[in-house]
């Protein structure tokens, strides 16, 4: 049985009106079977080929669609991160992570305040060299003590 026996002219015309006049655009099995009809076409098939070829030409002139450049980055941005990072994120937002973070930030704040205060009251370089500079304020000086009384109005 030849392919021509399995396809009728009506079926061939229906297929031309479905897949167009170019046999290469047809499903592979059908294009092989239809090839003999295209080689020596009847008037009806020739007319169908002519009409559909015009539409094929028009369809091939349809402009191609270009995706915008920013779409690529936007899609990748939403892509899943690695499981390690995902696991880390899950742990962080699971209560324990937030508690540890709160503790760490409190500690950091305490250290910042403490060190800031220490820096503000830190001795100058000269004072740092003199180990008695702070102590001398506490040593009683009788002359200074007496001069202090002179300033008091009678």
């Amino acid at each position: 049985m030849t392919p021509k026996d399995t396809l009728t002219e009506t079926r061939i015309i229906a297929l031309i009106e479905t897949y167009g006049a170019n046999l290469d655009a047809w499903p592979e099995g059908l294009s092989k079977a239809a090839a003999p009809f295209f080689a020596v076409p009847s008037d009806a098939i020739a007319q169908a080929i002519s009409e559909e070829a015009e539409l094929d030409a028009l369809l091939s002139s349809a402009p191609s669609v270009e995706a915008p450049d920013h779409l690529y980055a936007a899609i990748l941005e939403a892509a899943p991160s690695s499981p390690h990072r995902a696991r880390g994120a899950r742990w962080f937002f699971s209560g324990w992570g937030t508690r540890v973070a709160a503790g760490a930030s409190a500690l950091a704040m305490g250290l910042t305040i403490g060190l800031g205060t220490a820096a503000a009251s830190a001795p100058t370089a000269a004072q740092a060299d003199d180990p008695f500079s702070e102590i001398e304020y506490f040593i009683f000086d009788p002359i200074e003590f007496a001069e202090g009384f002179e300033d008091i109005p009678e």
Partner: protein
Amino acid sequence: MPAPDPICLGWPGVDVPTTLPLPHLAKRAQEQPIVSEDKDLADIRAAASGNRLAQSALVTRHMPRVYGLAKRMVGEPALAEDITQEAFLRAWKQLPRWEPRAKFSTWLHRVTLNLCRDSFRKRREQTMDELPERIDPGLRPDELFDQSQRTASLMSAIDSLPERQREALVLCSLEGKTNIEAAAIMDVSIEALESLLARARRKLKADVLKRGED
């Protein structure tokens, strides 16, 4: 130095078909080579575990066609972008559970098509007053002498096709899908696809070619 094997350029394991249906489809296929399912599967597994290169490869390989389908179906670029992003968002969620029962590209196109249908449904729910006015697919005969005008007329005619007919035509005649792939994407039988495709072409001929002859 011997010329590099064109098949291995860019994507190792890429199979470029030697026989292509139509010149314009052949050009598009060369721009976006068909990739073997094995390559997709390897990239899906790597992408699911957060591998940026694999994710990038999947987007590079499939995004242009997904966007092309969405743009041709809905027309508006912004809406097509939203649909493309949503389709990939669903893909990212699906990757860890991916089972290779279907081709990734078929699945992705089907998701895209469903999102397009959702957008049509929402549009239909609007009152008729709010609906954008359809452009008359047929230009006056004196306007049809120019090829670019003819192309514009064709695109308008495609836009005015019934939804399912447009899907069949876009997939088979513009996106270069085989009848088996297109039927799988649309979730219809081959016979149903052929019927839709034939009706779409008949309407296009009546709207564009026949009007031009009047």
